């Protein structure tokens, strides 16, 4: 029963739904990762600007949040403008962020006493609209709070990243609660790229896209950020069988 009139209505409805879901994004309003496998899984071809994204660490990273912080720093380094980083515990080491591409002149740190103030500062930063990215280290993120943040970010070109970080491993189950974030990531550490000589190669991460709005979940094994903040697909090295315990010969040779 495909009369032209009903075709028109159906396509109109489709367009309205796509607009409501946020599909019709212009190419300028996403931040692509540069890895084709990863970008095709994300709606729009990259991380949406003007939206809230969540990143958490897996395993021990849920408490120390080191890999997640570098992942967020890599994303923030590729945006334009200053970056606001809201923290409760001042244990971030800035030279590591500089090695991930986030220059020290670009990052402004706000140290708040509790989660509520951190979220309020993140909202202020998103609403301002002149920053490149806002990263906030929070433990609890409720649905209402995340919806407020998403609304504050809408229409601007700032990326909001909620870095989930808990005090105890048992609280990390909180990551299962639904929130209004556009995408949800979990970054866990993996053994580094094997080298034919003793030493530690480029760090590797298991990056899981747990939830993407209007997209499917997936996971990838990627190499950690280089000094421009870009991730990379691991190249498989020829696996040479090394002598047993050969690394004992001294790491510095």
């Amino acid at each position, binding site marked *: 029963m495909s009369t032209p009139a009903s075709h028109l209505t159906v396509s109109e409805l489709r367009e309205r739904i796509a607009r409501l879901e946020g599909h019709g994004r212009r190419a300028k309003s996403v931040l692509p990762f540069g890895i084709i496998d990863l970008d095709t899984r994300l709606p729009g071809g990259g991380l949406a600007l003007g939206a809230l994204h969540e990143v958490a660490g897996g395993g021990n990273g849920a408490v120390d949040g*080191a890999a997640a912080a570098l992942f967020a720093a890599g994303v923030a380094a590729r945006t334009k403008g200053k970056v606001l980083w809201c923290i409760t515990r001042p*244990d971030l080491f800035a030279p590591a962020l500089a090695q991930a591409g986030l220059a*020290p002149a670009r990052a402004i*740190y706000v140290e708040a006493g509790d989660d509520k103030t951190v979220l309020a500062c993140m909202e202020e930063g998103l609403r301002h609209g002149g920053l490149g990215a806002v990263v906030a280290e929070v433990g609890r993120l409720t649905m209402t709070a995340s919806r407020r943040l998403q609304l504050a970010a809408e229409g601007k070109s700032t990326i909001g990243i909620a870095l989930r970080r808990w005090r105890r491993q048992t609280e990390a189950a909180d990551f299962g609660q639904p929130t209004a974030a556009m995408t949800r990531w979990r970054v866990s550490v993996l*053994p580094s790229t094997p080298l034919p000589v003793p030493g530690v190669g480029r*760090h590797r991460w298991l990056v899981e896209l747990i939830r993407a709005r209007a997209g499917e979940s997936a996971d990838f094994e990627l190499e950690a950020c280089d*000094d421009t903040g870009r991730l990379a697909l691991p190249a498989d090295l020829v696996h040479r069988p090394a002598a047993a315990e050969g690394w004992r010969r001294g790491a510095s040779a």
Partner: protein
Amino acid sequence: MLAADAAAHAAGLRVGMPVAKAQIIVPALIIKDADPAADVDALDRLALWILQRFAPIVAADPPDGIVIDSTGADHLHGGELAMLDALIGRLAMSGVAARAAIADSWGAAHALARYVARPTFIAPPGHGASAIAQLPLEALRLPAAISGDLRVLGFEHVHDIRAQPRAPLILRFGPELGRRLDQALGQDAEPIEPIRPPDLVEVRRAFAEPIGAAETIARYVGKLVIDLCAALEDKGLGARRLDLLCRRVDNRMQAVRVGTAQPVRDNKRLTRLICDRIETIDPGFGIEAMTLAATIAEPLVRRQLMSSLVEETAPDISDLVDTLANRVGERAIYRIAPVSSDVPERSVCRIPAMAPDSDATWPNHWPRPARLLARPEPIETVALLPDHPPVSFTWRGIRRRVKRADGPERVFGEWWKRDAELAAVRDYFRIEDDAGERYWVYRSGDGEDASTGSHRWYLHGVFG
């Protein structure tokens, strides 16, 4: 002899001693005539300086004190303790030895500062009479005759007088005693008359009917800000610190203080900064007058904005920095700048968020961990000396096998900072265990020479 400091006390000089006696005790004494008028002037100048830097309601409390009402201003310094420490420290840097105390009432704070503070003291809020009960009588600011008579009668401490029925004491000594006691306990109001610098830019508005609702206060704040900005524009100034003083019907003042990082003359921005803190104002029975003053005003430099057709301009985030600084305190918002030091915990320092950008960055020879522990935690390891990384280590009770390692990176102690670091050495290793967790550990000592360190291993950071 009108005043004696610690050095004078050590030499044996006391307040009230005649000059001749002092000259005998200290032979090479330099004598100058006392100048009480100049002392009062100096106290006023100090009060003005405190007004600019610390709190909006300040008055001189002669002969040797200053009284400050710090509600509404301690958030800018990060709390009462931080504010007192900063005040005493700043005065000490200028060579003024001071003591400070915070309490609920002027009388109690006066007593605590002179008899308890070493050099600061903060009485818990709502302390009532317990904070001053054990202090001697002179702490109540009584005239010398009255306190002398009370001592003759056998009263020594404040709680002795409090325990007595009030009426016979007043009959004998007059109403002054009762008034001072009530002021110290906080039951009598003692309004502070704030000091005003002569060329202050301020605007006032008095209301026919006392106002109390938050929306009304916000509306009048907006009107006052417009008037103040017009007054600042006449002088070519921008405001860096604003004080809103509300005089209530019962003659108490409520104050709100906001600060900005650069001089500002924008109506909306200033109104928003003040209205963010309106809920800290307690209107009581009503506010009958509001005064808005620009306590610190600096010349506002006009800058030409580049046209956006030519080049991308960096957006101005100073208003965001101001809003956040007024919410969490000026010290809690900062940038990090590199310091040229090999020792990792000394290689970073905090600078103000609006400091000019610079391209300086850390040297990129070795990878650095994303999280650095505040104190390196000791770990037990099995490692070959002198330059092998550990084979396994135990941290926080969990034993891990090391699969891969890199290092050592040798960091020498900074002998010019501390003598103990003359020969000290740290050998840093980046180690990875079976699961892929990467840590930054170091051995204090070079593995050969016992004088370079204790040869114990510590975990300093976690890599991502």
